């Protein structure tokens, strides 16, 4: 027995050393092809030889608990080993491989993990995993990689419930009040590496002027006004002039008197305005249904009634599109824009709005409103819209205005409902640190791209999780009580776990403290 214990102890030392070396190795495996360091580490640690090593580890922990009186008779030392054993066993139960083996024997299958792909219109119970091909291309999404859905995802099974996405949005940190970190840029030939030209100015305190003078005919952009904090709870029209601005609701029937005696009246609100042509070839505008994957373009149609009862139709768009389509400039003084409250920015201050004056050669100055949209990508406005004239931009490629800010997501939220047929099983407002446990799975919201109305919900099987949690608890109690117990006695008789392998009943003696 003593001899066997000696072998087991040496095996334990060798095993711990081997696992340490393998962990270090796994941390420094260089990325290889589509596999990054973590994926290579996972392959190494879950390979068939390593499964053998894990089984040996489980065996040694069991032997340790049974064969050593020093472990068996000390509850806390026993707890350390039992806890480790439970954690390891739970991890093995929860692993992909264990699920594969179980699934070979049971019907229906229970996939270990994957993604449920949801849009508000399409509930789903299907679990997908990214294909090797998709993983190799870095998961840039279908739009970026040009892959079809089938090339991107493999179906690996179904959930016992269907998942409905009620709503999904991102909350952002409010921009800094001093506008530090904000940049306005002018770019010419953005797609052409050889000829690309770029000028950038911080949008802080003063109103900057940017000139792209590397072009044959320079473009100048002057920031004339900056609104840094507008709070909105409903669609609103901003009418800004040199002395400031006026806000009034973009509600049909609302009227706003202007300083020159004329009146502006809202006659129609468009959820998604689209241009068209009537039978005579005249340009018309209409409210079009939303198209999945494309942002709506809201607009407001107003009538300007001057003192002589003359009517003029005015359409205001969101910032960046203001001078596009028709003649939205009211007169030299006013430039109306439509502001809509963004769900993405609930509970945060809205982003700044910038009024620009653009000129190029003998064209302009043209005024336009400009605002970054939500998302981490900088907002871009193609200047062709702002100039409303082809001549101004032909030799500059498609010059763009960009506004950049370090916009940090504060929270992702996805409201989901789980249904079994017609019956609601569970519902929850998912956040990154707040998953939903239901139907044998846990549903996670990892991240979100709020430019695409789609949420990839991570689902993970619950098998073995409670074993892991129990193991962690037992391990920690064992360690804190076992190792800290007796540590705080000032003088004698503190307890090392044991001093020698020879005595199966180690004495609790520690050398006396010499004063």
């Amino acid at each position, binding site marked *: 027995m003593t001899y066997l214990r000696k072998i087991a102890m040496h095996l*334990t030392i060798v095993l711990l050393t081997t696992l340490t070396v393998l*962990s270090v190795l796994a941390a420094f495996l260089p990325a290889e092809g589509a596999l990054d360091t973590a994926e290579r580490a996972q392959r190494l640690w879950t390979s068939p030889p390593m499964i053998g090593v894990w089984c040996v580890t489980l065996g040694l922990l069991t032997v340790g608990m049974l064969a050593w009186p020093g472990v068996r008779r000390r509850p806390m030392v026993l707890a350390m080993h039992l806890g480790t054993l439970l954690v390891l066993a739970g991890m093995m139960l929860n692993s992909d491989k264990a699920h594969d083996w179980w699934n070979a024997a049971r019907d229906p299958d229970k996939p270990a*993990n994957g993604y449920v792909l949801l849009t508000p219109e399409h509930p789903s119970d299907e679990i997908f995993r990214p294909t090797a091909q998709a993983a190799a291309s870095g998961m840039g999404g279908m739009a970026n990689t040009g892959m079809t859905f089938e090339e991107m995802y493999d179906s690996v099974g179904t959930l016992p419930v269907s998942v409905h996405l009620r709503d999904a949005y991102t909350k952002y940190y409010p921009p800094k009040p001093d506008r530090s970190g904000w940049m306005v840029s002018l770019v010419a030939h953005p797609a052409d590496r050889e000829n690309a030209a770029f000028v950038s100015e911080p949008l802080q305190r003063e109103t900057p002027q940017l000139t792209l003078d590397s072009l044959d005919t320079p473009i100048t952009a002057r920031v004339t006004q900056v609104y840094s904090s507008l709070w909105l709870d409903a669609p609103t029209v901003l009418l800004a002039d040199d002395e400031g601005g006026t806000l009034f609701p973009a509600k049909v029937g609302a009227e706003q008197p202007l300083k020159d005696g004329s009146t502006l009246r809202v006659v129609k609100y468009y959820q998604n305005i689209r241009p068209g042509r009537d039978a005579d070839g005249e340009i018309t505008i209409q409210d079009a249904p939303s198209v999945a994957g494309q942002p709506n373009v809201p607009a407001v149609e107003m009538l300007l009634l001057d003192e002589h009862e003359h009517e003029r139709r005015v359409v205001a768009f969101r910032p960046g599109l203001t001078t596009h389509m028709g003649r939205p400039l009211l007169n030299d003084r006013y430039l109306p824009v439509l502001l809509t409250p963004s769900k993405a920015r609930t509970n945060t201050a809205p982003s700044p709005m910038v009024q620009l004056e653009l000129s190029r050669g003998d064209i302009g100055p043209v005024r336009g409103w400009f605002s970054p949209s939500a998302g981490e990508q900088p907002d871009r406005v193609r200047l062709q819209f702002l100039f409303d004239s082809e001549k101004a931009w032909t030799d500059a490629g498609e010059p763009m205005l960009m506004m950049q800010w370090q916009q940090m997501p504060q929270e992702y939220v996805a409201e989901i409902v789980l249904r079994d047929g017609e019956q609601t099983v569970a519902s929850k407002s998912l956040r990154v640190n707040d998953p939903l446990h239901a139907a044998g799975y846990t549903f996670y919201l990892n991240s979100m791209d709020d430019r695409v109305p789609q949420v990839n919900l991570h689902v993970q099987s619950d098998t073995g999780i409670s074993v892991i949690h129990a193991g962690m608890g037992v391990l920690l109690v064992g360690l804190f009580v076992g190792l800290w117990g007796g*540590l705080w006695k000032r003088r004698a008789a503190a307890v090392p776990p044991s001093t020698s392998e020879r005595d199966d009943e180690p004495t609790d003696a520690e050398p006396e403290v010499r004063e």
Partner: protein
Amino acid sequence: MIAVLQWKLSWDGGPDTMQMALLYGALLLHVLAFAVLLADALLRRALITWIGWLLFATAFLAATGSTVYRGVHAGHFPLQTMFEVFLVMGMLMFPLSVVCRKGLRVGGAALDALLAVLLLFPAAFVERFSPEPKLLPPALQSPLFIPHVATYMIAYVALAKAAVASVTVLILGADRASDAPRGLVDHETAMDRLMRLGFPLLTAGLVLGAVWAQRVYGDFWSWDPKEMLSLATWLAFALYFHARYTLGQRRPRILAGIVVAGLVLMLATLLLSQVRDLLSWLFDITFESYHTYSG
């Protein structure tokens, strides 16, 4: 030194001057505390002891001031960036030293002050550990964030102190390692007590991280390099306890060697992105890691 401080203060300017002034003050006071406590270890005069501990305590107050200022400035508990992590670890050395001396009868106050200097130095002078505070991304907004990192920081300073003791054991060898300074335990016992102090905390940090990861990503374990190295550290320290069980106190140098190896792995975990940059630069290879935000 003074010239550098002046240059730094004038160069930083703005709202962070207070932050940096407190940090440089803490650094300077720790240097002084180290010098005086070292003199105390050699001369053993009551007055010098008293001055040394007074300096150490004042240094702690300055570091605490810097940490609190940082927390208020950043708007969250300051354990997100490397700057904050080094600042907090430096701050922890004084309380650790007191707890070890009074509770565990483990000495080494002068070396603790030196360790604080080494920990505060990167926060103060290494440009890449920028003092600019950051906003918390959604994944870090968890009630487990502070317990996970704070537990790790306490474990790290305790185990770093254990490693300092183990270096002493390595130098002194089996015979002299059992010599006990006045009123304190011998070096080998000191190393063991510090290991016993730090290891449960290290495990708690690892477990809290795994539970947090499971709540955020669905997996306890993501095979991420930082995780693999933290596991390596844990395994190496677990090896220490098994080796001590097997060898007893007969081979203190082997045990001390394991602790030093554990320290190397611990440092590699903490400074992973720096180690990886170095490896990438040396061998032209690339890595990916989830823990990049800790940078």
